């Protein structure tokens, strides 16, 4: 049986600007799936973007190459990733005037 683990990376968090998620170690896993549950997204032209980033040490990061489609309304969004090495995070951008987002971010890892 393959191990799996779901980590709540952001829990009911509210952001008013761009942010990166906390580093999460995932060397044991061979596949990952991000979920972003946008509960509220407000502001003129508000939109949320999220790019996957990887790191050799949890300190210095680069883009992995995949990214979520732009999110412009509440809902559940998902993105699968493989071959990510030992660490994962999301680099998230919040566009729009006086934009505000409240969300959950999950990282589902499988051996």
């Amino acid at each position: 049986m393959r191990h799996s683990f779901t980590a709540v990376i952001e829990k009911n968090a509210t952001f008013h600007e761009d942010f990166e998620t906390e580093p999460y170690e995932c060397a044991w896993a061979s596949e990952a799936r991000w979920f972003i549950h946008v509960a509220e997204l407000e502001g003129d032209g508000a939109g949320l973007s999220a790019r996957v980033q990887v790191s050799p040490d949890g300190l210095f990061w680069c883009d992995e190459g995949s990214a979520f489609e732009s999110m412009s309304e509440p809902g559940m969004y998902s993105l699968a990733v493989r071959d990510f090495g030992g660490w994962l995070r999301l680099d998230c951008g919040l566009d729009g005037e006086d934009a505000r987002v409240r969300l959950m971010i999950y990282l589902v890892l499988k051996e």
Partner: protein
Amino acid sequence: MALANADIRLSRFNPLPRILAFDDFDDGLHGWCELVGNHNGDLNELQPVFRDMRPAQLSTCTFFDMGTHGAVDGTYSMKLATRPRKFHQAVAIKRLTSAADGLVQFEAWFTYKAEQTFGGDDPGARAWDGNYHPSEAHFGSFTLWNDICEGTTPRDRYHAALRYENTNEEGEFTQRWLYKTGLHPTTRMLREGFDSNQNDVHVAKPDMWAPIPGGDQQLCFNEVPTKVNWHYLRWLFDLSTRRNTELQVNDLTMDLRDIPVLRFEEGYWGINRLLNLCMDVRTTSNVRNFLYMDSVVISADW
């Protein structure tokens, strides 16, 4: 003990006769999960201090300068990581119930670290001198604790909490073991107006910790943030007396039988025989703090 000595992975522990759990984090997190406070389905109801306890991680102890450190055996350990924000706390919990009153023992091989920083503004910190490294002053504390309820009548529920305080709230080295003298403010207490700083899950105010007699101890931080040395810890508590018994950390053993353990005045419904084991790490700087567990053994004499 004979069984423990015959097993190479258990021989570094001293378990009581019945092993309830042997959590070797080389094969998963073994039910150690993120603590979340009480809510009614609306996460806005969570106490501020309980909103962001962070998920545990399976760590390889990998660092920028030397790659993967690994654990005592195998590759993985359980890591709790704070955010890089002063007084942030990461908490993991394992939820059991007790089948009888009696002794329960928690043993672990652990280590702790502050995240590597580079240059930057670190006013007041002693400079690196080739031996001492300012990283040690970035580490706040880690705490082992339980959440016990023998029934539903008042004074059946209590928390025992033992904290290794490396630096105090002002970031000054203290390097000692503490016990708490104030109650963990429950959601119910806060709803009734209890005043709390909301930056420590254990107590409402920082002066609600007191030193354990004979509890001064320097651990092996080992100079830099990328060397980890594993420490042995054994904590024994007694469900029949509602007290801690003793805490051993390497060569220091503290008799805890006279340390008071505060109980809640009100009864709690629906948590009969609750036996939760918890651990946390709390930073006193704007640097991520990490607590690592190579392995944990929980045992009992019942």
